[in-house]
């Protein structure tokens, strides 16, 4: 295990955390779409609230996937082929979601279809990303060649489903916090109530997930309890939930900030629960895919580090720029969707 290997373990975590933070809230808005969008205008505000940013947000996932491919090819190969049907389901959902915005905007007759595409395309990944993360923590059956030996139903175990619901609750919390920041009137009131509801459900799910980890995956639990870095993430999680609870009306921006700390904390905990493995093997830990046995060459990791050092600040700079341009409540009238 080399320094660059560990660095890229951390950087993949950063990219996935970026995805959970940024796409998390817009997936949440999509999953809440039919429930909070009572009128056409509400729905329009909901779509417009994420309209300018959702596509850039999704790039965190693509870049994260690319980074796993580049830095840990064996992990990319094993997980993507092993989780085949589940990933295809996520893929089809993301495909429908990606076209739903533009197709909805310019095709009145088919609006109902693209409404559904937006909702299901958001709700399904919101649940499945957590399920995937849960399976990684729990470990997956792999053989000596690093090939996945389970099937689709291997992935639907109670522990993974608990993490699926945890992820869903988090995205819905993030989504309603975002929407409260962007909306007014009746939609705003509903968003605030939903934010409070899902913040609570999230807190409950955190406790359930913690208990489930102690019961089903003691290895991960003890690894978190004994790692100082994991404790930092635990503190961050508590701060996020506490700040989320106590930030009230007029502090919608703070509420969203608070909700946005949770994905960072959870991805951090997730990473620390498996480190230095990337894919723990179920049963025999010697078969696990680790930083040491699956990282790319030093030269490739060096090149990738240079690419990241140039690219990441650039991306953060114009993300900052664009979020500032579109800050504040949604203004309808002529523009966009």
């Amino acid at each position, binding site marked *: 295990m080399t320094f660059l290997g560990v660095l890229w373990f951390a950087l993949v975590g950063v990219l996935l955390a970026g995805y959970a933070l940024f796409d998390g809230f817009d997936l949440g808005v999509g999953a809440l779409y039919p429930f909070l969008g009572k009128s056409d205008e509400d729905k329009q505000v909901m779509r417009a609230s994420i309209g300018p940013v959702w596509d850039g947000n999704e790039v965190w996932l693509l870049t994260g996937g690319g*980074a796993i491919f580049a830095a840990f090819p064996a992990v990319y190969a094993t997980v993507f082929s092993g989780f085949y049907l589940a*990933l295809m389901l996520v893929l089809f959902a993301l*495909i*429908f979601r*990606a076209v739903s915005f533009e197709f909805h905007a310019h095709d009145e007759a088919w609006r109902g279809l693209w409404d559904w595409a937006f909702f299901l395309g958001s709700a399904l990944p919101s649940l499945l990303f957590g399920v995937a993360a849960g399976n990684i923590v729990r470990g997956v059956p792999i053989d000596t060649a*690093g090939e996945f030996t389970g099937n689709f139903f291997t992935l639907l175990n109670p522990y993974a489903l608990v993490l699926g619901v945890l992820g869903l609750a988090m995205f819905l919390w993030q989504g309603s916090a975002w929407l409260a920041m962007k909306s007014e009137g009746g939609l705003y009131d509903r968003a605030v109530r939903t934010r409070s509801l899902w913040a609570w459900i999230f807190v409950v799910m955190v406790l359930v997930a913690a208990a489930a980890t102690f019961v089903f995956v003691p290895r991960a639990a003890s690894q978190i309890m004994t790692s100082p870095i994991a404790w930092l993430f635990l503190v961050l999680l508590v701060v996020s939930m506490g700040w989320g609870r106590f930030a009230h009306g007029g502090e919608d921006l703070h509420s969203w900030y608070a909700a946005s700390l949770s994905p960072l904390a959870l991805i951090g905990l997730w990473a620390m629960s498996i480190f230095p493995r990337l894919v723990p093997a179920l049963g025999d830990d010697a078969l696990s895919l680790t930083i040491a046995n699956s990282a790319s060459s030093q030269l*490739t990791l060096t090149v990738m580090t240079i690419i990241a050092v140039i690219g990441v600040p650039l991306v953060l700079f*114009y993300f900052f720029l664009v979020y500032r341009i579109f800050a504040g409540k949604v203004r309808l009238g002529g523009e966009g969707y």
Partner: protein
Amino acid sequence: MDVVALAKLQFAFTVAYHFLFVPLSIGLGLVVVLFERRFYKSGKPQDQAATELWIKIFAATFAIGVATGITMEFAFGTNWATYSRFVGDIFGAPLAAEGLFAFFLESTFLGVLLFGRGRVSNKFYYVSTWLVWLGSMLSALWIIIANSWMQTPAGFKIVQTASGPKAELTDFFAAGFNPSMLPRYFHTVNSLLITGGFVAAAIGAYYLRKGVSKEFGRAAVSIGLSIAAIFSILMIVSGHFQAVSVVENQPTKVAAMEGHWETGPIPIGVVGWVDVANKTTKAFEIPGVTSFLASGSFKTPYPGLNDFKAEDLPPIQVTYQTYHWMILVFGVLILVSCLLWYLNRRGVVEKTPWMLTLLIWIWVLPEIGIQLGWATAEIGRQPWIVWGQLRTVDAISKSVPAYQIALTLTMFVVIYALLFVGWWRVVSGLIKRGPVLPAGSGEQAAAAAAKV
């Protein structure tokens, strides 16, 4: 069908479909830039309406390109896991860089184009059109670096691991600037821009034919034909260098492309038929021209198909036909674009209905030509997935059963067909509605705003 055949079919279908939309979005990206430049200089509301129509068409097309592009990024891992393990050390980096340097750029600034008109200055907006287009051109660069490495791998060594051999990077610049990368990039991007030009001209011609929004129609035809003509002429150069690169690096591919059986100078065929069973090629061809173009002498001999083992050869007939029909298609496009560009300058095109009808439909040809070109490149590369290093049959995912690939392939066909219908409805609807004057500049605007 077995796993390999199904995986190949799924990749061929999804990538070919994806590449119907890539030329449109990269080509139209330039059209958006040029139209926004007009508005930036003139400040006229009708010029703003013109760019806004292009941006809407671009965004609908871009969305389907993004959607079908995610499939491709997943596909290496889902269907080609052994390939991914083999090439990951080299192939992954350009994919990650594509996300970081290209996708973020185009997606973020497309948000500005779609929603930012009232929020940013005209200059910022104009710069954003450039950044979106630049992002898409960079994305093409990274993916072609990756693709070219599969065709002409360089800057690596093979090492043995527990899960089989893999390619390990030894020289980043040698791998990135591998022998076929630059010719392939210019050749590909060139064809995309030709498509964009013809599509712009087609939409313009539609208005001129119908006699509505004529000022916009004229601008679109003139800008579209200029793009198409300029890049068609450059195509002669970039196509030449691409062909030379194949002759120099991929002897079995060029032998299949020209149906060249015995060692000797390679001719250039116009049309023909390869009789694979009798190992001959019947063609209308000019002897020695391919040799001349590649080496400067009509006499330079190159090995023929008979000189290679049968298991190292690609499907010959398909490679031959796709290559020659690609050349014929682009040959026609070079003539048409230059001729119509000239006639349009003289004001003839607008007054000649059949020319407008031709313009409305001819954009389909570059789309077909591009598909044929990719088929030549990728089928001609067979039986290798990485030239000379890894065979396609050895590259699949071992943990995925055939029925799952068949199932997802069926899903792709159904979903992609639905997307195509959805896209066609949206784009044709936008074109029928035409450029809409922006809010605050007239009654149409108020009506349009109420409709959104």
